[in-house]
């Protein structure tokens, strides 16, 4: 292990990259059973889903720190390498909260045999890399069926999640609501039509919305015991309240009382720079990440109405090379605002906005795009690598 940790330190200190990934890769090469050994020595929570993994993992980490030290890949390195690096960095932590890329959950879960698996939501994302979300659901369902000792905490309002988590012996269902339904109008089991009424959903084949034990109602979470917990988060939006509700349920399962957990969640004000406001000489820029249609549904609801918006789009490998998904985002809602298009693939977004009849102008450099706006607030929304690049540049400024 020492060699792996040293490499991570070298990578960090030389500024070459994110230490997490490189450290993990070396260790895996040294010891293929490392993940299994490091994972099974402690209580592991895996967090997966298309959106909200990093946020929910940080929430759970904060909550479980009420009990003891927690190992976590809070930098968002959610491939097996990053997971291993997180465990290696804190070999003595009795708990681990690990966010895992949806497609790697079956493999990672088999190695670490998690105490809890958190399943947030499933929707289309990076079709060129991840593939179709319905195939991901089937793989997760099979993986969950092979984890009889794992408690699955899952969102019962998401049809694909409910289908996958129903394979668990005793799932803990959390109702968080849902706004993106684009991937579940057809049933994941039989492709029949999923009918939705008053927040309930069901298909004629028998797949129906499970009854939740935990329910998010506005800013309150109702526990299975009927208690109400105020969230009062510093993070904005319903998506974060949904993440918090799931985090409370999972933390409760491991012995953290909901009120204690909620108080600890309130200490979180940004997640790896997301939602953080950066003050520059003429602008205060709020940073937001949106990298797929479902994420954009939430982001469009959080954007401040009277503030100019800068949207940065890249299409590197980690973003997905195919930007067709921009056409699944209801950008029409940006009409009437000041909108600046930027990023390596700003041209793709500009065409989308043109057809959405959203007035905009283009500035290829994201920082120049901000600087060109009149003084005041700026809402900056970027996808994955665009966001990473920008937080680096803006924080360094």
């Amino acid at each position: 292990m020492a060699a792996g940790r040293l490499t991570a330190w070298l990578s960090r200190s030389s500024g070459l990259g994110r230490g997490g990934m490189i450290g993990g890769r070396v260790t895996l090469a040294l010891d293929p059973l490392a993940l299994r050994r490091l994972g099974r020595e402690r209580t592991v929570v895996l967090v997966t889903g298309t959106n909200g993994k990093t946020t929910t993992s940080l929430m759970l980490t904060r909550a479980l720190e009420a009990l003891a030290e927690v190992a976590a890949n809070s930098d968002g390195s959610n491939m097996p390498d990053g997971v291993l690096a997180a465990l290696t960095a804190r070999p003595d932590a009795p708990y681990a909260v690990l966010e895992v890329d949806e497609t790697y959950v079956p493999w990672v879960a088999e190695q670490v045999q998690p105490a809890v698996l958190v399943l947030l939501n499933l929707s289309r994302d990076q079709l060129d890399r991840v593939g179709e979300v319905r195939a991901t659901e089937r793989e997760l369902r099979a993986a969950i069926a092979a984890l009889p000792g794992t408690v699955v905490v899952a969102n019962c309002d998401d049809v694909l999640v409910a289908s996958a988590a129903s394979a668990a012996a005793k799932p803990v269902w959390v109702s968080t609501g849902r706004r993106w339904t684009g991937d579940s109008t057809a049933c994941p089991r039989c492709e029949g039509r999923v009918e939705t009424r008053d927040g309930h959903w069901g298909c004629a084949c028998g797949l129906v919305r499970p009854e939740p034990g935990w329910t998010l109602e506005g800013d309150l979470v109702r526990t299975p015991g009927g208690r109400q917990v105020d969230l009062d988060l510093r993070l904005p939006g319903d998506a974060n309240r949904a993440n918090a509700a799931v985090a409370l349920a999972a933390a409760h399962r491991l012995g953290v009382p909901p009120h204690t957990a909620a108080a600890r969640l309130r200490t979180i004000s940004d997640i790896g720079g997301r939602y953080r406001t950066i003050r520059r000489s003429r602008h205060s820029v709020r940073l937001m990440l949106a990298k797929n249609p479902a994420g954009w549904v939430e982001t469009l609801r959080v954007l401040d109405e009277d503030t100019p918006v800068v949207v940065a789009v890249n299409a590197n490998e980690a973003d997905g090379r195919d930007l067709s998904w921009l056409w699944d985002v209801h950008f029409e809602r940006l009409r009437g605002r000041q909108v600046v298009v930027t990023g390596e693939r700003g041209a793709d977004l500009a065409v989308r906005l043109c057809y959405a009849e959203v007035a905009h102008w283009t500035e290829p450099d994201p920082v120049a795009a901000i600087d060109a706006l009149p003084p005041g607030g700026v809402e900056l929304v970027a996808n994955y690598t665009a966001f990473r690049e920008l937080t680096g540049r803006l924080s360094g400024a």
Partner: protein
Amino acid sequence: MRDSVVHIGLLLPELLGTYGDTGNAQVLCKRLRWRGFDAEVVPVGLGGPVPSSLDIYLLGGGEDRAQVLAAAHLRKYPGLRRAAACGAVVFGVCAGLQLLGTRFRGLDGVDHDGLGLLDVTTEPGARRSVAELVATSPGLPAEEPLTGFENHLGLSKLGAGSEPLGQVVRGTGNGDGTEGAVTDRVVGTYLHGPALARNPALADLLLAWTAGHPLGPLSLPEVDRLRQERLVAPRRRRTS
């Protein structure tokens, strides 16, 4: 355009809406409206029959099982085939292309009947083609190249009843150097992007067929810039 409103059918978006191809409907609708025509997008879902009264029918990409169900639905309700026989314009992308053909083989090795509107048969290839796709387009005014993003396993063979839409310059397309298929006013392609956003000349060709005459020019600098960017040879990108 039997009446003054052009009806653009978006077929089975719940099954064939996975790859952003619903944008094709929006592109056609806006390109008509901006030229002073009335146009309307009509989503046609799984819930009922397929109308035969629409002017344009659009089918997008979807996954394997969804494609089988979509083909079954469109064979059960004859609206699309009837409309095509009467000269309606049909445009299918990826799974849409495959199910417009005579036959396609699923991942399970089972052959399924398509709609037979294109003389195309499809079988799974050895590996998925996931990349930018560029093809020539002899049928388009000024022969502007076609560009888009392909993401498919299936390889398609054309029979005598269909012509290729173009020849592949970069990427896989049908798998034999050709890309897409055309029979009368039925067009299939492997181009996502969506195809009609990335290829306005193709969009306007479909609209000209519908209108019965070419439409006036429509200049969108954003589209020109995107085409310019996507048609240059791929640059080496930083890996991330």
